[in-house]
């Protein structure tokens, strides 16, 4: 099989697989599986990015998302009653409106994507996107890079401050009240 055909097969496999995995995230009963179906969707997108010659971005996406989805799975198990999905339950609200909104969003964007005329300037397949990204980050877009760094630092400090058990005004558990009994 020629290289172009192989790339096409891989693209349909991983791109279509990414969409199927994303759909399965909301279909499955087991919460841990939902988190890892999301990881599979991200991995599919990462592979498509590698096929588009943005290899660094694809690999960094998989790296980030593996850790993030494991944390999501841990949070699911922490907070939900039925994390393994051993008893089936659906926990959705405004289901019809959500489906309509999803379909409208998909249709609108897909219509634009298919119908609109985009300029045809393909990237150089033999280029070095990682080196160019590095030069851009530390050259013209240095301010953006520094802002992103400071934002991440603020996030780290903020999330530790929010989630910390001991605060200036006492323990985190003080003053908590359970929700009212009736669930409408």
């Amino acid at each position, binding site marked *: 099989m020629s290289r172009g055909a*192989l790339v096409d097969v891989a693209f349909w496999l991983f791109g279509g697989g990414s969409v199927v995995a994303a759909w399965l995230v909301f279909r499955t009963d087991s919460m841990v*599986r939902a988190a*890892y179906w999301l990881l599979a969707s991200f991995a599919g997108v990462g592979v498509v990015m590698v096929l588009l010659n943005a290899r660094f971005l694809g690999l960094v996406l*998989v790296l980030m998302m*593996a850790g993030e989805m494991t944390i999501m799975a841990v949070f699911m198990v922490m907070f939900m009653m039925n994390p*393994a999905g051993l008893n089936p339950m659906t926990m959705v609200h405004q289901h019809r409106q959500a489906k309509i909104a999803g379909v409208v969003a998909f249709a609108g964007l897909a219509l634009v994507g298919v119908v609109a005329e985009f300029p045809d300037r393909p990237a150089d397949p033999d280029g070095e996107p*990682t080196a160019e990204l590095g030069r851009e980050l530390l050259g013209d877009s240095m301010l953006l890079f520094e802002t992103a760094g400071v934002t991440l630092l603020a996030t780290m400090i903020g999330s530790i401050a929010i989630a910390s058990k001991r605060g200036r005004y006492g323990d985190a558990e003080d003053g908590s009240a359970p929700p009212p009994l009736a669930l409408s």
Partner: protein
Amino acid sequence: MNWSSPLPALLLVGAVLGLGAYAVAVLDGAAALVTARQRLPLGDIVIGPLRQAALAARTRRSTTERPDLQAWALAPALLAGMAAGAVATVPFGPDTAVADVDDGIVAFGAVMAVVMVGVYLHGWSANSPLPLVGGYRFIALALSYEMPLALVLIAAALPAESLSVGAIVESQYDLWNVVRQPLGLPLYLVAGTGLAFWGPLNGADGADLAGGTSAEVSGPARLMWALSRRFVLVAVAVMGAAVFLGGWQGPWLPAPLWMALKTLALLAVLVAAGHRLARVRLERFVVVAWVVFIPLALVDVFVSGALAL
């Protein structure tokens, strides 16, 4: 390696992982006997691992109540696949790498992250408390060693001005990185021990959890998990030999033989550490990793960056 025949690539990666896992088992048996101050019967040490593997393959398989069967089967496959991916980015000779991509170090980082997924799934799937505890302990361990591991590899990539493992190997033609960046290899070995959850950092499969994530695993699945763990250890040693010990470079002997010798040296250090050092309490390791190792790794990056500029 070209597109039309993936067979040489499979053979190379399979040979490295298979022989490496066998070497780990042999070294493990030898280290156990040396630590116990007993004599080393050569025939037993060499045949022993094969006998144990055959026995494990024949043991009856047991299962738990309502396990997550697909995830349970996926976990060792994830570890083995990730180890194979990591070994594929390392060159075993001047032109002999399965996939010496421009971002080999980043690929190794992605491998590291997916190993965490595999071990957590292995602990979760059994639907049993002790494996679950092992999986959670591994997440705490993984989040702690990931940063020093990534930083130390980046520091090694700085003199090479490239993220590809082949370029890093070639940048060590005058001086190995273990000499040029003295903080690099010790931090890498500590983080690598955590990555393969071996010996002192065996939070996931420790004896204090009655085997941890592999407490409910038996039969061929147990053999597969043990093999996958050893594959990850071999991948750690291969990457360490390439990035810190100069890879395939060396006088007189052919390049793959140098690579094999350096990998075996690192494997011997890791296996000996497994037998000589007691298992570290995870709370203590997490504190040390975040408070000591990350600043040391940052110092490593700054110093090697200053030297490279």
